[in-house]
């Protein structure tokens, strides 16, 4: 018996190690809780502790490396790379003069805009409270699109907070540690968001795929969707505020896994491959809206449409009537065909629409 164990010691150890990890994996699959409005796979307590322990060791080193990298870069920019500075100075001066003229023109437009905004009673649209964070690392794997930032719970960060750049959304906070946090990028396979196409107003679900592309899925084929169309956050996922830029439609193809649905591949607005600094939205205003998505006019139009589709009760007679008028009435539309009691045998058919 002893010789059996000593002979197959390596294989037995491998078996035990695999079994333990298999059980650990199974625990993680059962344990996650899907938070409301988010598809984040929250970790159990023990898994969080492991991630925290690793982050506590790794994050300071990465922060130091990033600091050294930036220091070297600044040294190069400020002291070493001085060639052509005089010429650049002349060029910049010329550009400043040109921009001053442009600024005067823009100032007039801005004042006009402010007046119009006050006139229409628009609400302030970007009342976000943000925290600037620096990207200090990645997951180191192309199967998991996660980045590490240098801000954590000590800076007020919480899981599921949206992360953006001035160009567009990046992802959302996945795990928060005291001085660092993991951000799940929108092109990760487990990421998701509610989106809307800017011009066609078609809503869809954003997902990442194995190749690291960003896709909008669960859409029925529609001729109106064209490459180049802008995609914005819809706000339906209760994570990302409405109207933030997601990207542009790059290609349209049949979703092989879920026919007959189509999948739109996007060109992300934010450069996900090389992120230096990001903004974490820690607070948003009560009613977020952005131009083109949550405008008052659109809200009013939606309410009118909804109201028109609902039956109304006539207070005088107590009968229920439909006030809706069909956009393209046909012979099946109520009211377009006379009642049967008024028709006579042999009479020609009423004209169909």
């Amino acid at each position, binding site marked *: 018996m002893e010789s059996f164990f000593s002979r197959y010691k390596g294989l037995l150890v491998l078996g035990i190690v695999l079994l333990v990890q298999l059980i650990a994996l199974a625990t993680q699959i059962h344990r996650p809780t899907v938070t409301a409005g988010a598809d984040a796979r929250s970790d159990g307590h023990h898994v969080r502790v492991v991630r925290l322990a690793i982050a506590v060791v*790794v994050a300071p080193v990465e922060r130091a490396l990033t600091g050294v990298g930036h220091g070297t870069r600044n040294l190069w920019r400020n002291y070493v790379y001085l060639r052509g500075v005089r010429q650049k100075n002349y060029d910049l001066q010329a550009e400043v003069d040109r921009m001053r003229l442009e600024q005067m023109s823009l100032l007039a437009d801005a004042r006009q805009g402010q007046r119009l905004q006050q006139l229409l009673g628009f609400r302030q649209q970007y009342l976000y409270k943000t925290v600037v964070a620096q990207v*200090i690392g990645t997951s180191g794997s192309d*199967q998991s699109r996660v980045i590490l930032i240098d801000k954590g719970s000590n800076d007020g960060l919480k899981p599921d907070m949206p992360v953006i750049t001035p160009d567009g959304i990046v992802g959302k906070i996945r795990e928060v540690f005291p001085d660092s946090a993991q951000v799940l990028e929108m092109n990760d396979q487990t990421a998701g968001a509610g989106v809307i196409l800017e011009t066609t107003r078609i809503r869809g679900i954003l997902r990442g795929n194995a190749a690291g592309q960003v896709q909008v899925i669960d859409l029925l084929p529609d001729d109106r969707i064209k490459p180049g169309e802008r995609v914005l956050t819809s706000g339906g996922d209760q994570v990302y505020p409405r109207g933030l830029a997601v990207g542009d439609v790059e290609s349209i193809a049949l979703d092989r896994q879920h026919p007959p649905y189509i999948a739109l591949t996007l060109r992300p607005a934010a450069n996900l491959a090389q992120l230096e600094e990001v903004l974490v939205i820690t607070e948003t205003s009560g009613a977020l809206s952005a131009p083109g998505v949550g405008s008052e006019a659109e809200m009013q139009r939606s309410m009118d449409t909804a109201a028109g589709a609902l039956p109304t009760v006539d207070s005088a007679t107590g009968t229920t009537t439909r006030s809706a008028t069909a956009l393209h009435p046909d012979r099946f539309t109520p009211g377009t065909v006379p009642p049967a009691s008024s028709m006579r045998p042999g009479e020609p058919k009423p004209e169909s629409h």
Partner: protein
Amino acid sequence: MALNSTLTRHENETTFHPVVLVVVPILALILQVYVPHLFPHFVLLDLPLLVVIYFGITLRGQVAGTMAGMLIGLVQDAQTGHPIGVNGMAKSIIGYAAASIGIRIDVDNTISRMLLTAVFTLANSILIYIIERRLLGFDGQWLWLRETARILANALASVVVFWILDRLRRKG
């Protein structure tokens, strides 16, 4: 000479300073998460995998190879957004296999090392694909182009990485 007997193995026992055994995996793990931030294509390289393969084939202990693979894999998992254990399981098997093969093959030959690295890189990707798709239910895709690039990148990098690690080992 391609093959070595187990007798030769005992004559050429390889050991490392304990500091090397600790620092090298940590350095590989830190570089793996830091460098892709500067050079995104670096993500094709798997430095921790190279370290597991190297320690496996040079230390030639199946238990040591398995444990090294498991620990390095688990730390890698902790830094991803995926459940912990995916890389842990894959690299445990790679560590065991590398140690098993290291007993039988001349692992000091550069061509053998490159071929071994290529095979283990492919095996690692297949294992992760199976674990993620079959056990975790992810909608994973097998991308041949990416996997080929990964195999080539790791095989070429192994020449440099193994050469550096060779300087750190001491023969008994």
